[in-house]
């Protein structure tokens, strides 16, 4: 989740969702590193909060996660968590941890949720004397907002993009670079790519929407494009090997999947948002339109 200037000024906590974990963080915090089950946030002073989780890992996963997340040989199980943190984590079994290295300290805990089997490790960063009172209060609020029992497929709300994965799809990869954030989700032999590009006016001053879409989804620019709209926004559709039979069917049968992509221009927020599905069968256009409509700018 990246804060808007209004939120940053008002200090309103911002919701962040990443691959099955939902939480609200202070407006000044920004995600700096992500992993399939990993989230690391910084504020202007440096590292602020880090959490790593795995579903169905069990109690053994709690210790493994602790070893994986903390500096090797530096972390020690033990320490005392602030009461506000303990209250926020009442639903978890927990094992406090603490470490100190090069003038920086970490205080956190390995967690285990007996209800769903999720194992996690979190830590809040602080100076040589540990997290200050302000950081402790911020972290209490963050931990209180932690939600991992949301039913349905994982949601994503980060880097200016909100997206709810279609049922059955799981995160397979992601990429962030200034101006571009993309997610790849997989279900069997189907792969759904979701992309958010900005600023749209600069991109569209150089190339057409169809060319930008082809480049964004890695399609041949010669792939036929059809204009249209998605919601109220102008959009372009690109179809590759989508014929029911003939050469397209033969190519798909020989292992070259078809692809259908749609990219829309949200002029109001100056962004391009879209989705592409790679599948061994022709893609249902309505299904993809519905999936692409779930890509919302933050």
């Amino acid at each position: 989740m990246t804060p808007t200037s209004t939120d940053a000024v008002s200090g309103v906590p911002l919701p962040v969702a990443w691959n099955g974990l939902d939480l609200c963080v202070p407006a000044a915090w920004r995600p700096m590193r992500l992993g399939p089950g990993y989230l690391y946030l910084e504020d202007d002073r440096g590292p602020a909060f880090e959490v790593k989780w795995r579903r169905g890992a069990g109690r053994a996963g709690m210790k493994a996660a602790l070893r994986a997340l903390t500096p090797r040989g530096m972390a020690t199980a033990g320490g005392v968590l602030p009461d506000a943190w303990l209250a926020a984590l009442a639903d978890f079994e927990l094992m406090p941890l603490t470490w100190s290295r090069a003038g920086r300290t970490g205080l956190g805990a390995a967690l285990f949720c007996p209800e769903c089997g999720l194992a996690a490790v979190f830590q809040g960063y602080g100076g040589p004397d540990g997290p200050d009172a302000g950081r402790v209060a911020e972290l209490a609020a963050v931990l209180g907002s932690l939600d991992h029992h949301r039913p349905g497929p994982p949601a994503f709300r980060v880097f200016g993009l909100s997206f709810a994965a279609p049922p059955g799809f799981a995160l397979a990869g992601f990429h962030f670079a200034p101006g571009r954030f993309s997610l790849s989700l997989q279900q069997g032999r189907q792969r759904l790519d979701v992309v958010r590009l900005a600023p749209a006016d600069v991109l569209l001053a150089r190339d057409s929407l169809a060319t930008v879409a082809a480049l964004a989804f890695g399609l041949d620019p010669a792939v036929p494009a059809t204009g249209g709209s998605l919601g109220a926004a102008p959009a372009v559709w690109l179809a590759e090997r989508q014929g029911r039979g003939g050469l397209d069917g033969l190519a798909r049968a020989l292992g070259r999947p078809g692809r259908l992509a749609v990219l829309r221009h949200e002029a109001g927020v100056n962004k391009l948002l879209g989705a592409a599905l790679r599948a061994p069968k022709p893609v249902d256009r309505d299904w993809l339109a519905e999936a692409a409509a779930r890509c919302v700018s933050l």
Partner: protein
Amino acid sequence: MFPFKSKKVPDSGLTRRQTLALAPVRSRDVLESETAAGCVRLSLPVAVRPALAGLARRLGLWDGRALRKTVELDAMGSAVWRAIDGVHCAGDIAAMLAGRYNLDPAEAELAVAQFLRQLGRRGAIGME
């Protein structure tokens, strides 16, 4: 082990806030012109390895004049370059970029930081 020793990235020891408070300054060696599309074209001096330079001189392939490389910036790069005046800090430039292109402030900071790093590596700017 020595031959495979990993290269450590030097840590500046600065927080992000301190880094963004630094003001980039253009190098005097950079020549600037404008393209027909209104973007900035930079002519940058290219550093030549001394061994190669000596060899080229001996073979009569180079007269010792500074070699230059031309780089054309896109619209956003041009906007950032024009904002580099030695007065405005990187944070100000990122805020300007975010406002002009309706970008997320954090993303604009990353984009500006990345771009300034590239310019710095090419010797086009310094920081003060």
